[in-house]
């Protein structure tokens, strides 16, 4: 049972919650850029533990399934369709043997996530299935998908389930389930990305701090999984100084001497030595991850406590959603 890649798309790679625990060895965390959409897709197909989903960038792939399975697509709306017919996002769907999944026009967002029930059968490397694109390991052969790849799936669906139900019955039963996404895990429609001040905040000029919170910054064309380069008013230190390299985080806004900030994203290097003005709150990283080159981003401040409270609310909402979806899981596991 495999997912056969007919067209790879612009950049399609397997990503999960990330390869934590090995940063002291210089191993980047990587993982899904939009953790919200990744986790939602996984939850919708009834996966209780974190399994890699396929992160699809701007131009989606075309894939064919050799056996039935249950999928969900979340994140960017890249006009997904099955055998040419548009399909719903943010829902568990049954696909049949020989069905072809393809993507079309980009309607909204930058990255879509494709999860399958049971997960893709790809090895764990240092505790994660995420593709480490720069170091060429993890995911599928350490790289983005190529035409002709055949990705095995762990848990395809039987034509007739163990409970005697056919695929059509299963598909209808899944479709009949009412899904309610609480605000904490619905896609964010916020206009501004929230920031937590860094220790060096006061070392930047008042004009720079003001610009960061009032002016739009454009995401430059060379922004990718490693970092987003922002173009806008210069961010300058009152007294520029050299910093000593230290650990970096997902969302660190570092400012090289030139004054144009860089937001470190999922594939960031583990250490860095530029001054840091602020950090993107984890709750809004998905919002930023769905922006792309050419988009304008605007920022506002949030306190550390408020950011953590929002983060916790989202985690709790995911746990509740997984509980609410126990019927989906039961249907799939019994099939």
């Amino acid at each position, binding site marked *: 049972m495999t997912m056969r890649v007919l067209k790879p798309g612009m950049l399609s790679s397997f990503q999960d919650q990330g390869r934590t625990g090995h940063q*002291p*060895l210089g*191993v980047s965390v990587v993982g899904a850029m939009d953790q919200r959409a990744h986790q939602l897709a996984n939850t919708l197909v009834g996966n209780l533990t974190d399994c890699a989903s396929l992160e699809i960038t701007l131009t989606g792939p075309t894939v064919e399934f050799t056996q039935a399975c249950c999928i969900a697509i979340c994140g960017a709306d890249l006009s997904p369709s099955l055998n040419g017919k548009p399909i719903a996002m943010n829902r568990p769907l049954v696909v049949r043997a020989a069905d072809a999944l393809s993507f079309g026009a980009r309607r909204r967002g930058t990255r879509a996530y494709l999860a399958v029930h049971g997960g893709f059968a790809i090895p764990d490397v240092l505790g994660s299935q995420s593709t480490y694109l720069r170091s060429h390991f993890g995911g599928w052969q350490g790289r983005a998908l190529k035409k002709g790849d055949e990705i095995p799936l762990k848990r395809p669906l039987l034509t007739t389930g163990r409970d005697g139900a056919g695929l059509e019955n299963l598909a209808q039963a899944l479709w009949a389930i009412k899904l309610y996404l609480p605000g904490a895990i619905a896609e964010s429609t916020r206009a501004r990305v929230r920031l937590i001040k860094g220790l060096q905040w006061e070392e930047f000029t008042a004009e720079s701090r003001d610009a960061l919170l009032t002016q739009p910054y454009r995401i430059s064309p060379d922004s990718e999984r490693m970092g987003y380069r922002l173009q806008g008013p210069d961010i300058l230190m009152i007294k520029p100084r050299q910093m000593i390299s230290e650990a970096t*985080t997902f969302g660190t806004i570092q400012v090289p001497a030139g004054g144009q900030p860089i937001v470190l994203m999922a594939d960031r290097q583990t250490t860095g030595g530029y001054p840091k003005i602020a*950090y993107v*709150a*984890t709750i809004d990283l998905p919002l930023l991850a769905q922006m792309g080159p050419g988009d304008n981003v605007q920022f506002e401040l949030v306190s550390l406590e408020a950011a953590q409270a929002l983060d*916790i609310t989202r985690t709790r909402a995911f746990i509740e959603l997984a509980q609410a979806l126990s019927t989906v899981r039961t249907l799939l596991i019994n099939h």
Partner: protein
Amino acid sequence: MPAPTYRLRPQGDRCLSIDFGDEISTDIGLLCLSAATTLGHAQLQGVTDIVPSYTAVALFYTPGKEFGGTDFRTLCAQVDQHLKVGLVQATTSAREVDIPVCYGGTHGPDLNDVAKKIGVTEQEVIRLHTSPGSMVFGLGFSPGHPYIGVHDPLFALPRRDVPRTAVPAGSVAIANRQSTIYPTLLPGGWHILGATPLKLFDLNRAQPSLLLPGDKVRFIPISEQEYDRLAAKRAEEAL
């Protein structure tokens, strides 16, 4: 080790950094490594990664006590509690790792230039670089990529004005009184003194990284023939 002085600082909402100083020195580096070891042994709830660097230790965590995570305040209190008791000295568990290096020639294109810049012979550069007392402060930039120091003040050279776009794997290079070894072909601006035939990061090993934070490193000069022999032996073992 006695209780150290330090400052706690949030790095966003999922990381707590502990600052032990603001200069690169063996003493502060050891303090960071010892604190990282101490906090590692403490197995703090919600902490996923402990990353020592030259002057700081970063604790990465998941917020939310109800899900096995933690929060900034709780973690600060725990760090205070554990560091107050005193540190587990990192040096007591330090390994000693020999790194064979073929200096100069095609493997070390900057050896001559470095000798000229600091006003000594190439032999003297090698002697100074192979003198004992070097330690791995941390790894970063790419998997298994070590930062080793602190070398003789003569090696206080800034990085090259124009970085190389491709530095070969195994290259041993210096800048700012430190050494690094490039695990794979990477861009880099450090001065390349030589190369080691050892593989810095290999997923086929139980511990993929050749070097770990706190390791004592001794560079051993080897001939080009010895380099070739060791490189061939490694290639054979990989088959």
